[in-house]
């Protein structure tokens, strides 16, 4: 807790973004995407299972937040204490412009106001009063304008600034931050007003290490102002679709760059030639850029490259023999390209690969023979390919595999036996119609599974017996329509479950909710399109961790869920039917 710790709560790392590139199909279990973001929030609540009660410090902080109107100022408190109070106010959603006034001159180090409603220029004076104590400030999503940024000139020590989704900030405002030369991290995601001229204000930020301009469509021509920022290690200009080859030239001298993301820009093979000298580059994201295999000549010079994303680049087999030169790569994303089995032979030598994404490529069984030597492979994405049971044979020796996605492939029950020896597997996606109970029967040896997706598979009640082998399952989706309450008896003891999706099984009744009432770890539950009624809701009272509940097309009303939320489920933030 306290200021020192919150400093480490850094902004999300793009590398992880990239590694998770093997995309899950969030659309079907609508809530899980959003859950991922809310998990990152700090938690002050009493942790169940810990022996000790809440500290006196926590109790005091909560008491103050409850009675916040009784306090005019906190400036007499030591900094680390006032920092804890404001953190809790922000977290509990209780910070207002009135209560914020109490934090004038508190010498606060961190102000994460990114989730606070109502933040605007009138808050800036109190922010400014923190003076040179203030090290990081997040005003994302606020209504702060160009004029508001004038106040930041007093906060000379600022190291990190976040202005994502600030629609009222334009080039004119950026001039006011040009003197903040201690800045190391700066983020202006999704700003359509910033142009090349605005970027010129960054030229004096010589300590900048991380710059994020994702989805700023107007910055073409502005990167020339970054030329002198030799400490820059990470530059994100994803979805800045005006960026083209000319914008790459100024990057050629930024030799400390480790992470460069230029996906969905107009950069072509020619633009990539400017990157040849970036020997420290370990992550390069070119997703959706109009490049061809010819760019591989330039990329081969980048001997430190570990993560390469070339998905949606329109690559074909032609010229791809150059891939054999990328023996250092750990993560390679080739999803949604026109590559075929013939291409995969070029990956044979990439023995350091840990993650390979071939989503929606024209890959079948024969090509997979080239993957047999990739012994470090942990994650393999084969969704929407024509890989079938014959191909799985080639994967049976990849004993380090932790995650395989076989959704929308032509894999059948008989092939799954080949996966039964992959004892490291944690995540398996078999969302495909032809998988049935007997396929599941072949997998019971995979006792380490934590994520199992059988969304469209035709699993029936008798198939659920095999689920008993997967005691560590954290997420389970079975939505093929074949389950009744009888099958749920085999799910009710999977006590590690946090996400359970049983939607589309239209024969499930309130009995199902009664059976799963002991799965107290559940954070997300979906039993849509079933015969659940309002009177079944009472069985959910013990699911205190539940954040998301989806019961669409059931005989359940928003009002009844809201009542349950008020009386028993304080953590429930997202439910259907109903609203937030």
């Amino acid at each position, binding site marked *: 807790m306290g200021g020192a710790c919150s400093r480490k709560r850094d902004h999300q790392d793009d590398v992880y973004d990239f590694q998770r590139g093997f995309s899950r199909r969030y659309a079907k279990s609508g809530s899980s995407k959003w859950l991922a973001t809310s998990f990152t929030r700090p938690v002050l609540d009493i942790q169940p299972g810990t022996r000790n009660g809440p500290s006196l*410090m926590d109790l005091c902080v909560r008491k*103050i937040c409850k009675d916040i109107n009784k306090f005019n100022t906190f400036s007499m408190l030591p900094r680390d204490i006032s920092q804890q109070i404001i953190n809790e106010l922000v977290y509990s959603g209780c910070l207002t412009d009135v209560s914020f006034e109490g934090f004038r001159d508190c010498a606060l180090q961190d102000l994460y106001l990114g989730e606070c409603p109502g933040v605007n220029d009138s808050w800036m004076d109190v922010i400014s009063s923190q003076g040179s104590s203030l090290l990081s400030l997040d005003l994302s999503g606020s209504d702060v304008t160009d004029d508001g940024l004038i106040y930041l000139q007093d906060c000379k020590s600022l190291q990190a600034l976040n202005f994502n989704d600030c629609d009222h900030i334009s080039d004119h405002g950026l001039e006011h931050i040009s003197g903040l030369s201690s800045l190391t991290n700066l983020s202006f995601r999704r700003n359509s007003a910033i142009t090349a001229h605005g970027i010129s204000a960054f030229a004096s930020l010589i300590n900048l290490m991380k710059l994020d301009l994702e989805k700023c469509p107007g910055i073409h021509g502005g990167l020339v102002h970054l030329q002198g920022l030799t400490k820059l290690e990470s530059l994100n200009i994803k979805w800045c679709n005006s960026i083209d080859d000319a914008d790459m030239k100024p990057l050629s001298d930024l030799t400390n760059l480790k992470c460069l993301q230029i996906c969905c820009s107009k950069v072509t093979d020619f633009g990539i030639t400017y990157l040849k000298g970036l020997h420290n580059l370990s992550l390069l994201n070119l997703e959706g850029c109009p490049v061809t295999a010819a760019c591989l000549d330039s990329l081969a010079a980048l001997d430190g490259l570990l993560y390469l994303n070339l998905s949606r680049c329109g690559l074909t087999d032609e010229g791809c023999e150059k891939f054999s030169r990328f023996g250092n790569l750990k993560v390679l994303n080739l999803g949604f390209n026109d590559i075929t089995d013939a291409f995969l032979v070029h990956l044979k030598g990439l023995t350091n690969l840990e993650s390979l994404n071939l989503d929606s490529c024209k890959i079948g069984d024969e090509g997979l023979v080239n993957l047999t030597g990739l012994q470090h492979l942990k994650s393999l994405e084969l969704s929407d390919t024509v890989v079938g049971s014959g191909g799985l044979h080639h994967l049976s020796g990849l004993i380090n595999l932790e995650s395989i996605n076989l959704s929308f492939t032509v894999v059948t029950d008989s092939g799954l036996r080949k996966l039964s020896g992959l004892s490291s597997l944690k995540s398996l996606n078999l969302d495909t119609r032809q998988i049935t109970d007997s396929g599941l029967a072949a997998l019971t040896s995979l006792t380490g599974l934590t994520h199992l997706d059988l969304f469209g598979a035709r699993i029936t009640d008798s198939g659920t017996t095999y689920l008993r082998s997967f005691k560590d399952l954290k997420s389970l989706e079975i939505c093929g329509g074949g389950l009744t309450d009888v099958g749920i008896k085999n799910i009710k003891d999977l006590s590690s479950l946090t996400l359970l999706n049983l939607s589309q099984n239209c024969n499930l009744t309130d009995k199902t909710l009664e059976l799963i009432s002991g799965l107290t770890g559940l954070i997300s539950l979906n039993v849509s399109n079933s015969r659940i009624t309002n009177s079944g809701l009472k069985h959910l009272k013990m699911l205190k961790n539940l954040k998301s509940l989806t019961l669409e097309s059931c005989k359940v009303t928003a009002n009844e869920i809201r009542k349950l939320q008020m009386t028993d489920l304080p953590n429930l933030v997202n439910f259907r039917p109903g609203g937030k």
Partner: protein
Amino acid sequence: MKKEDTVKLISAEGFEFVIHKDAAMVSQTIRNMLTSPGGFAETEHGEVTFPEISTTILEKICKYFYWNLQFASGKQTEFHIEPELVLELMMAANYLHT
């Protein structure tokens, strides 16, 4: 209450609170004082003086120690804090690491 099982906490005004050692050791700071070998005089005499903690606040803190022990043993009640004490109490809690 045996003497060796207790500890005396003395407020700024000189008011003495004799409480169980187990309770006092809910505070990480007091625990360190009482258990660190050799160093502190507090270890020998079982007495700790807090020149910056008033009697009212120290009494409240002692109540918290016992409340915390009860909480840990499963009796989870609410700990009441008077609004007028909370700021001072928090500074003491910060010092006592509790």
